[in-house]
């Protein structure tokens, strides 16, 4: 029963991968691992009645951690690995950026007050830093699967950004959408920037930056 099950599992995965390469459907490594677990599990369960194959537990236990990590972390290596800095100057079109692993900094400091739009960011494993000016209205939602959310109130000086006014850290993600903003400046058009930030494992750091000249 064991060799038969293993053989069927490998054939199923090979066929699915070939169909995927032919463009029939998307088939990721995470799905391959999950499908192999499914087939081996069914084979072992059937083996409980006929042709017992207890040794199948060993390959299954070896595959489980990989399948779990690949599936729940939503890491797609096509998203890239490394360090990224994204400066957003306008939100005429929705902005979407993804990174498989590494550090990503999203800088909204060049946005005009009153600007509205959508920003979607996903980091598989690593640190996501959001530099958000305090004179735009922001609605921040998202999640941190395993890690922390850090909120930093800071001030822009000639030398860059430095913390000055407060610091908060929470385990996990955003239980409630975070909404803040001093509102648009006088004379500007009201608007809200909606940011969806997700990090599977790592941290989100929010630098809430005062753009007004330092006193």
């Amino acid at each position: 029963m064991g060799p038969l099950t293993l053989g069927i599992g490998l054939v199923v995965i090979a066929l699915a991968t070939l169909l995927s390469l032919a463009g029939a459907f998307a088939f990721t490594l995470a799905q391959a691992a999950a499908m192999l677990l499914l087939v081996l599990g069914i084979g072992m369960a059937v083996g409980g009645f006929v042709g017992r194959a207890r040794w199948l537990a060993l390959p299954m236990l070896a595959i489980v951690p990989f399948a779990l990590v690949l599936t729940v972390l939503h890491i797609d290596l096509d998203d890239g690995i490394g360090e990224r800095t994204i400066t957003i100057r306008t939100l005429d079109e929705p902005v979407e950026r993804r990174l498989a692993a590494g550090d990503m900094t999203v800088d909204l400091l060049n946005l005009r007050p009153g600007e509205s739009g959508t920003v979607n960011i996903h980091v598989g494993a690593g640190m996501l830093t959001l530099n958000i000016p305090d004179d735009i209205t922001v609605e921040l939602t998202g999640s941190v699967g395993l890690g922390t959310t850090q909120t930093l109130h800071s001030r822009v000086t000639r030398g860059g950004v430095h913390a000055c006014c407060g610091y908060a850290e929470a385990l996990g993600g955003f239980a409630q959408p975070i909404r803040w903003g001093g509102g648009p400046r006088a004379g500007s058009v009201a608007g809200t920037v909606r940011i969806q930030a997700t990090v599977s494992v790592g941290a989100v750091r929010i630098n809430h930056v005062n753009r007004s000249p330092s006193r």
Partner: protein
Amino acid sequence: MKPHRFDPFSFVVGLAIAVLGGMLLWGDLDVPDLRPSRLWPLPVFAVGLMFTLYGVRRLVESMREAALTETEAWAETDPDGSNTLEQD
């Protein structure tokens, strides 16, 4: 394939892994779904099911043995089958 007596270990472990594979494939799981506070009933259920199936197997086998012993005892007391009731 050789015939074997029912093996609860293979059945339960295989079933659990198959369910896990199905959940990973179609369940849209995320990291928070894997918190121990959410997961602990599953291994408890698997272990409980395994013990239950071992118990059921033992019960079924003991009932079969009892039935077999009874048949053999009856055959010993009546080796030529002369006490068998004949119906008209």
